[in-house]
């Protein structure tokens, strides 16, 4: 793996906490533990915060093609993950969590759009990996 940058490392750590906590909540979706819900809200807010900071931590102009591919693969997975977490939040009946994950997904997509507009190398690799023609 190429150097992923500090942003990806810290986001990935919080991702795991979100996945674990939401999976635990899904084990008893009709009667979720209040403490787990509070923890999930905290983890979701942290993930949202870290995603909002990605633009300050990641500079694609300093990345080679391998590093850009790592970044793109990471962003694609994270986008799909946020959608999945949002669905889980809906299943356990937490509109607040659902909104946080939705908003985090919007922040991520804005970040990606920003990168695509300022960095042609990133845009090319992103488009190639997503498999769409724009």
């Amino acid at each position, binding site marked *: *793996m190429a150097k992923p940058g500090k942003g990806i490392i810290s986001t990935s750590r919080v991702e795991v906490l979100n996945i674990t906590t939401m999976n635990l909540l899904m084990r008893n979706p009709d009667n979720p533990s209040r403490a787990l819900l509070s923890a999930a809200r905290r983890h979701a807010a942290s993930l949202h915060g870290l995603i909002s900071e990605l633009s300050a931590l990641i500079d694609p102009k300093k990345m080679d093609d391998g590093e850009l591919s790592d970044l793109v693969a*990471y962003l694609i997975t994270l986008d799909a993950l946020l959608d999945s977490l949002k669905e889980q939040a809906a299943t356990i009946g937490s509109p607040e969590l659902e909104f946080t994950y939705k908003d985090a997904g919007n922040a991520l997509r804005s970040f990606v759009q920003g990168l695509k507009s300022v960095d042609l190398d990133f845009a090319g690799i992103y488009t190639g990996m997503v498999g769409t023609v724009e």
Partner: protein
Amino acid sequence: MSKPGKGLISTSRTETQCITTMNLLMKAGKKADQGLVNAAKWHARNLWQEISDLAVIDCKNMNAGEIADFSAFLISLSHSIQALREQAATVGNNDLAASFANIHSNLESTIGLHMAAPNFAGIYNQMKGAS
């Protein structure tokens, strides 16, 4: 946990990306988008590379606790890769299934290299329950 070494840390990070993406592909089933499939292939490629890098970890400088951590990590990783291969087969992606099979072979080769160190071999075999 003892000091896991840079190799384990970077491998674990890539492993998480593989697990997350394969779980998302399993959830999507036939509706999986090409971007997620391509991301999974890239994560698998990185995991293969990270496992190759594990060969340079020097067990001779590790104490028994560190070797036990390393052994447990390798055993979990081996099972995790096999589960990823099964998931790839379940979603009907032969390329990904072959990649994970190849990664597993790479890991077994790496473990084989470390088995030359008696202090590693003893603890690893004991943890695996091998005679």
